[in-house]
């Protein structure tokens, strides 16, 4: 073997091993992140965490009950507002859309998907908060605006995957178009659609930036949905950036709980999808 060939072979072996290293590094990042969070946070995730309100720095026994409830409230608002709209838009794009209008909507949905969430927050601030005040509703609206284009595109994606012959089979039996869609096409695509929805909700539940100017945060229970409301992501942010060690501890705990919830939803969604899409090819 010539020297040049030996060099080429060595280089090949080296570069390919390097790619393996890159892959291992990438995957281990996930476990590293989980590990660091668990290490720093698990001691603070106790009964108090889930049931008590935050205490001033230095006082032990505080928790983030208001943030957990607040997050759930805001996410629920966003889900109620965003999922049906996104779903219907996706149905339109896949089943009814003409050429130009559907193209326009698709383009705008992709555009919205790419807008930084903080800009969405500013938008909701100018439209809602300026006229009313900081509230859970505003936070919910901001998150809904993020959820709608995601849901629309993923619903469309899974509905178009349903073979045309299934639609024709329903129509040939005398079903009207909307009936065929509701009783055959949507059930055929429901796994993918559900997955897309779960992933979307998981995504918005971790978002902080849109809440910065809409629902703000709250150290107490607050006055209901039309008042500024605590949320887990905001708590993580405010507690991590504060100068108290005690609050840093709480930030780790909140971060751990938040990450746990988000990852759980993601894993569940992906497992649902991998069980198979309910249509035989």
């Amino acid at each position: 073997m010539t020297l040049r060939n030996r060099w080429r072979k060595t280089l090949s072996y080296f570069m390919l091993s390097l790619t393996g290293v890159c892959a291992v590094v990438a995957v281990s990042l996930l476990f590293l992140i989980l590990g660091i969070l668990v290490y720093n946070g698990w001691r603070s995730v106790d009964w108090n965490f889930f049931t008590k309100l935050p205490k001033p720095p230095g006082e032990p026994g505080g928790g983030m009950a208001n943030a957990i409830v607040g997050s759930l409230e805001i996410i629920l608002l966003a889900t109620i507002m965003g999922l049906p709209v996104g779903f219907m838009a996706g149905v339109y794009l896949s089943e009814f859309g003409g050429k130009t209008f559907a193209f326009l909507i698709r383009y705008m949905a992709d555009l919205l998907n790419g807008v930084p969430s903080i800009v969405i927050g500013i938008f909701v601030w100018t439209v809602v908060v300026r006229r009313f005040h900081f509230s859970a509703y505003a936070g919910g609206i901001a998150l809904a605006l993020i959820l709608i284009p995601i849901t629309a595109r993923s619903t469309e994606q899974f509905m178009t995957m349903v073979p045309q012959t299934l639609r024709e089979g329903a129509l040939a039996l005398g079903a009207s178009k909307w009936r065929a869609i509701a009783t055959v096409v949507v059930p055929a695509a429901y796994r993918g659609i559900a997955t897309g929805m779960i992933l979307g909700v998981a995504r918005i539940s971790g978002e902080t930036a849109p809440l910065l100017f809409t629902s703000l945060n709250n150290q107490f229970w607050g006055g209901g949905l039309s008042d500024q409301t605590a949320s887990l992501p905001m708590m993580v942010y405010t507690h991590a950036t504060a100068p108290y060690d005690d609050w840093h501890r709480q930030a780790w705990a909140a971060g751990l709980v938040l990450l746990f919830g988000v990852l759980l939803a993601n894993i569940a969604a992906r497992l649902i999808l991998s069980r198979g899409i309910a249509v035989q090819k």
Partner: protein
Amino acid sequence: MSPNEYMTMGTANLPSASSAAGKPVGQQGKLKAVNLNFYYGAYQALHNISLDVPANRITALIGPSGCGKSTFLRTLNRISETIRNTRVEGEILLDDENVMNVDVTLLRRRVGMVFQKSNPFPKSIFDNVAYGLKVNGFRGRLAEAVEKSLKRAALWEEVKDKLHKSAYALSGGQQQRLCIARALAVDPEVLLLDEPCSALDPIATAKIEDLLFTLKDQCTIVIVTHNMQQAARVADRTGFFLLGKLIEYNTTEIIFKTPTRQETEDYITGRFG
């Protein structure tokens, strides 16, 4: 029969397909095409088709790939409308009534279709057969109607113990018979079959051909097939399509033994297609 009348009927009163609701047995003109032209956008796929389908007979449409026979079949129950940018010129008459004047969902209850590749819904066997009944507002006893359809499709014995299993658990041939049962459930007067056996093995094919014989007493059947032997076996009348035109249409015996057109003879003897 109006949609309202149908919806208030009980099991006993589903009309039998032919004699009550249309032409007497064997009479010409159950389903007629008159100067039918069909366009995909600017492309003309069917040229001036005029065809008379007799009641309670099996009519086969043959021809090489792309000759327009499937396209023609799909205009008969207006399922061609699901594709954008298509245009129909001329008339299609069901019992002398223009199908464009009839509500399309009602038309499709009277003219059923079975597709080339079986397309059962992702539901149970029972729900598949019941689907057309539910959608058309059937008020009678569903289980009886489903059993009756599955018997007509010669599938009942094989599935009676697993009606609530998924339709996808069946074999290819069984799935196609399920689709036939599903189409029969709404008691159509006409049944259109688009190459129903092309994806099936010879045994399954034979079962379905036998089925068609038993069905033609209750139903008018139009079958598209690229298998000439199949047409020769089952059909009373045969139409030969080529390049979007109906070249010749006559009794099966004449088409296969003494065709009058050269193109027909070339196709029959295997010179092309």
